[in-house]
């Protein structure tokens, strides 16, 4: 069964999509964040993986954050966090401030 998720990109990660803030991504089956990133790289180019992931370990780069419906995947199953139809996934780079 195919599912559809809303992907939101913040700050410099918008460069990945050429400035698009929100992308609705259709996935052919229930998948994980890892599967979503693979799909995004098909849609927007392979460099997205280099921006998001540590090429050596394959994990999310430190201080990059991914939220599924407001919950940080580092506290869920990381890249193996499962996605459901209608989920909102937010990607943001290292940020700080007051």
């Amino acid at each position, binding site marked *: 069964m195919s599912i559809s998720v809303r992907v939101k990109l*913040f700050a*410099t990660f*918008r460069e990945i999509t050429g400035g698009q803030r929100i992308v609705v991504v259709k996935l052919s089956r229930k998948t994980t964040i890892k599967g979503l990133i693979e799909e995004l790289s098909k849609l927007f180019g392979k460099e997205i993986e280099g921006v998001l992931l540590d090429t050596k370990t394959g994990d999310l780069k430190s*201080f990059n954050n991914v939220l599924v419906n407001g919950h*940080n995947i580092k506290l869920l199953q990381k890249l193996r966090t499962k996605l459901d139809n209608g989920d909102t996934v937010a990607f943001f780079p*290292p940020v700080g*401030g*007051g």
Partner: protein
Amino acid sequence: MYGWIGEILRVDLTSGKVSIEEVNKNFAKKFIGGRGLGVKILYDELEPKIDPLSPENKLIFATGPVTGTRAPTSGRYCVVSKSPLTGTIFDSHSGGFWGPELKFAGYDGIIIEGGAKKPVYIWIADKQVEIRDASDIWGLDTHETTEKLVKETDPKAKVACIGPAGERQVLISAIINDKHRAAGRGGLGAVMGYKQLKAIVVRGTAKVDIANEEEFDEIYDESMLVIRKHPITDKSLPTLGTAVLVNIVNEYGMYPTRNFQEGVFEDAEGVSGEKITETILVGRRACYACPIGCGRITKTSKREGEGPEYETLWAFSAQCGVNDLISVTHANYLCNELGLDTISTGNTIGCAMEMSQKGFLKEKIEFGDAEKLVELVEKIAFKKGIGKELSEGSKRFAEKHGCPELAMQVKGLELPAYDPRGAQGHALAYSTSNRGGCHLRAYLIGPELLGTPALVDRTKPEGKADLVRNFQNLFSTIDSMILCVFTSFALNPYHYAKFMTAATGLEYTGKDLMTIGERIWNLERLFNIREGFGRSDDSLPPRFLKTPLPEGGSRERTVFLEKMLEEYYDLRGWDDKGVPLKSKLEELDLSR
């Protein structure tokens, strides 16, 4: 002395007497400078329960031992006083160039006492001090004041001053330096206004003596490497500024909307950091010796100025339901010119909007009304119409109209741009802050939202008391050296201790600095206890404890405060009323 100049000015505005006091080495070792120095002096010298707006209150402008050196972000100063807004001890901080200039002029700090009979300003140039008549600048805004005083004194002079708001003793007024930088919080502009002190103008040509130049160079190189390697201090803050947080905090469902009634602002994108970059951003600005440079220079079709930063952006947009970036930016410019704290001003207006929505106000002040927002900023500064009542801050305003629960404040200080229901540790940090509702006594947003230094579960109360305590101690030290807390994204107590040792020639370890931070925190607590504050003041507005957030990433959450508070008091070595135990005071060398 090294690091410290070794001299503090004492200026009695009632008699016009100016005297110089030496900085005691033992005292400096124990309290460092800046916040610590100010707190210690006020604790020793202020009579309990004095009116903050009376000649008895003192206003201390303080720098620290690394201020004016090459240490990254060492361009800060702080103002310490008893706050007329909160009644607590209060230190308000600012960047820019004024702090280092005071040291170059030959002083670590200035203690202002009494009150002048007519408007004055203080002119300090290479040790020489003059109290000058300010009758002809009284009434000018902070930009006009700065330009006029620079012309009157020295083209390279630096000015810290109040605007019309401070002159009128508005309880949420700020002290503005270098035109755009604010010691914003706590209404210390009103203390300056009460004393009829319009400005302090400084100019100096000396340099700060460093005890061990070689060691200083080493730790400088090491720290700069770390700062330049860290993605937040090297890339995020310089290129995106603080406003980048808008969309992210909104995504977490913690972006306080319409006076904290909701945690998601539907129009956030239009008033976000990304939008600022696309539309009004024309440049960036760094404070003295700052490799980060988070300041934003902006330009609208009508005007040019600095900001809005994250907090200001929130205070005038989501908090008031306003989605017009230009109006928000103009409200920010106005606050800088008239001398108002943007957080307290926006928060108080948002409070009035909810009161109007719920029928507590006769005057109609609607959420989303951008024109009204800008109009109210001006009215608050000049105490005109309803602005007179609003100028006393949200707590007094809501109490007066019979709905104290609608004021989003802690200890009388308006809360900033993170809904505490989404981050338990940050909620504890708000409630235990010695100066009231503030995000910079302990920035739990780092570990709870941004993953710095490491991500912890924001929904759980467990382990938060310890984190809050450590942040509070560390930030007390950073605020006393004084460096910008943004360095703490990259640096740790080891780096700070190395800077302290190299600059002053006195031995400090990271552990020493944490103990000093703890000492300062406890002394502030003792000050507040003497003023009548206690456990019931370490709280939050009832909304956060009882009413869950309606939607978004923090939906259905409230704060588990009591559980964390008990653990916090225990870890602090305080009794169940929040009073430091004798043994703790002895351990910190604070018992008399």
